[in-house]
């Protein structure tokens, strides 16, 4: 087990540098005129252009320029310096401010997913073809069909503005209650998927041989479902949730925008819009680490859930 984790950690280092290289290359290739992008529709003065060009080595183009700027970036990164955004803010500071609120939001979404999605999925799986099963099927289909970009403003309008049950926006340092609605909206998609996944898995396992054996041995139903079926059914769900945690953190662009939460997605959106290369690469690098760790945790959890799986 320890050797397995160590090996994975070493792979993570390689994966990290590989992805930063790719992201940096993509930003570099797609970059038009970041200085004009920053100024919007206003004219840019020569003085400002010269100043920013020199500061960010924007005159270094082509293959040489790419490697020069990439290695310059990596060198600073290894010294713990993520660089400056085009507006002169330390990217480290931006990330330090953005991550806590995004993590809070993702955890709320995750909790909602697990609590509601998995529980309802287990129930629907046990009572296959019941009214409960059919109505959750219908509901999840609706949720899966409506994209967040529609769901978020609708939820905001009705629950926040019309009926005033929740604050319509959360802001920079929100309390738990203000984050609840964005958390539910963000988690609703994963909730629906987790529910479907759990339901199918439970329904399938209920018909498995070992359940029949357990039943004929006279085990009580609660023990069969609670211990044996659940444990086996959770393997695909855990895989899904692990990957989803990364998605929830990086994919909150729309939700964070609608509810005005200045988290990671909010900053990523702005960075892409203003062609702020250093900021995009900084955010994505951290996201890569989150994904890698989430995947590692999922793999380790497999072994806990299924004793047949052994890591050497």
């Amino acid at each position, binding site marked *: 087990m320890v050797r397995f984790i160590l090996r994975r950690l070493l792979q993570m280092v390689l994966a990290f540098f590989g992805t930063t290289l790719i992201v940096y290359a993509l930003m570099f290739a797609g970059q038009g*005129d970041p200085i*004009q992008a920053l100024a919007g529709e*206003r004219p840019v003065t*020569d*003085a*400002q252009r010269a100043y920013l060009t020199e500061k960010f080595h924007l005159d270094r183009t082509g293959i040489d320029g790419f490697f020069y700027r990439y290695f310059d970036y990596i060198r600073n990164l290894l010294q713990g310096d993520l660089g400056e955004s085009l507006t002169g803010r330390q990217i480290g500071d931006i990330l330090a401010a953005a991550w806590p609120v995004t993590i809070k939001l993702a955890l709320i979404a995750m909790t909602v997913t697990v609590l509601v999605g998995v529980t309802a999925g287990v129930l629907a799986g046990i009572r296959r073809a019941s009214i409960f099963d059919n109505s959750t099927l219908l509901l999840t289909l609706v949720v899966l069909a409506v994209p967040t970009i529609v769901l978020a403003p609708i939820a*905001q309008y009705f629950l926040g503005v019309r009926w*005033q049950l929740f604050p319509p926006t959360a802001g920079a340092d929100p309390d738990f209650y203000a984050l609840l609605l964005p958390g539910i909206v963000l988690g609703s998609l994963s909730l629906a998927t987790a529910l479907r996944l759990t339901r199918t898995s439970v329904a399938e396992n209920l018909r498995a041989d070992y359940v029949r054996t357990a039943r004929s041995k006279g085990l009580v139903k609660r023990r069969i479902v609670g211990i044996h079926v659940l444990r086996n059914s959770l393997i695909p769900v855990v895989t899904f949730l692990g990957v989803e945690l990364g998605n929830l953190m990086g994919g909150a662009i729309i939700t964070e925008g609608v509810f005005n939460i200045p988290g990671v997605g909010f900053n990523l959106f702005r960075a892409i819009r203003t062609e702020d290369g250093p900021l995009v690469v900084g955010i994505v690098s951290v996201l890569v680490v989150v994904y890698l760790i989430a995947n590692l945790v999922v793999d380790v959890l497999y072994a806990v859930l299924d004793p047949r799986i052994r890591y050497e």
Partner: protein
Amino acid sequence: MRVRRLAAWTALPLAATLGLVACGSGSGGSGGTDPNAAVRIEIAEPQHLVPTNTNETSGSQVLAALFSPLVDYDDAHQAYEVAAESVTSEDNITWTIKLKDGYTFHNGEPVTADNYIDAWNYGAYAPNGQGSSYFFEKIAGYEDLQGETPAAQTLSGLEKVDDLTFTVTLSAPYSDFRTMLGYNAFYPLPKAAFSEPGVLDEGYEQAPIGQGPFKMKGTWQHDSRVEVERYDAFPGEQPKVAGVEFRIYQQPAAAYADVLSDNLDVIKMIPTENLSTAPTDLGDRFQTSPGSTFQFLSFPTYQEEFSDPDVRKAISMAIDREEITKAVFKDSQAPARSFVSPVVAGYRENTIGDAGTFDPAKAKALYESAGGPSQIEISYNGDGGHKDWVDATCNQLKANLDVACVGSAEPKFSDLLTKVKAEQPVGLFRMGWVMDYPSMENYLGPLYTSNGSSNFYGYENPEFDKLVAEGSSAASEEEAIAKYQQAEDLLAEDMPVIPLRYGQNVFGHSSNVTNVEMDLFNRVDLLKIEAVQ
């Protein structure tokens, strides 16, 4: 939380009654306002909060709270002195600026002529990379501060006379200099802003010290808010609220939802998608006021097919401006038929004459006789909500001129500009202009003179350049305007661009505030806004 919600429910009818009472009494200044309350105003994250480096509305809104300008503009958009006692000149070259006594910075420093001179020198010095440095280019000695290693550190045209007086010598006469001083690049900086002469302290921008009616409360909370509170030692007109929280939003739609539920007091620009419902959502809290934006379509005049002014006029004639402002913009913008905005002195209605009158038959005849291209492309930036009106314009051109027309989106305005600057065939392209100070020159100079900073259409007319230059150096404002108007008439003959629409401030406020007014620069008037008790 539940308590707060309950309070909100009970507060709603209460607020509604209060609003009714206020309406019933009929006078705006009736009781019921709270001078000790703070108001919350929506902004986007400012790029910078250094006066000479701030040229977007969010930053300039915050700076308007922290600083008091030398001159401001009255309801007729004429300049009047605020922090200046007088701004005078005999010859429009040497200007004497006398400051009012009694102004102090928020750290207690008295405001002197040096504070202005230091700030302007800092702004003009090229290695500082300030976004508004071009505002100082009319001052003598500006050239010596440019380039990578400038010859000088200070503008030779700035000279201190005494603590409250300094003179500004321009490199050429400029009649609008006094008007120009209202722009936020001309604010002073305290000694405390500089860590050593000419070097701005790194922390200054996080908590700018000004000489205005409000001072910073804490520091700039990036992506979250900037809070300011009343500065009691301010000698000018005192604001009617105790403080302002500028709350930072990335999407105007989120701010709009907050205004609807009284979580935010002012939204400065109601998003287009909410325009159709806003009048019913907000009632009389939905408001409009004149703005200075000017939207137009530009021709790449260097391209053969658009080089004939008649082609350009025919296209202009084939566009039904009223139809588009009504259907697409719900009358939040007004049709434009001149090259300058109605808010500046010297504006005349319909200077483009016939070319602005919608007449499909005449347009088609003119277009065919001038040999216009059978295919037209209109390029725009896809991130600014321009698709609808560009498509509508294209449809009109298709129907009225019998040509093929497509709108083609570039991801961002900067991508569009990159192509235009490289003279790639983009067809017609959209542009917009927001003035920096109310003067015809501010429209004509940058947009149409041969070396104008935003003349991307290759328009060159020596006669026009000459008239604008003569207007700038005219002895009086009337003479200047006469010259500018002659210049505008030349534009009407050449039609390098098609004027389409004038923008307005379309804003809304919560039931917590009254007397919300917006100026021409899309800024809330912080001295007028009041909080309802």
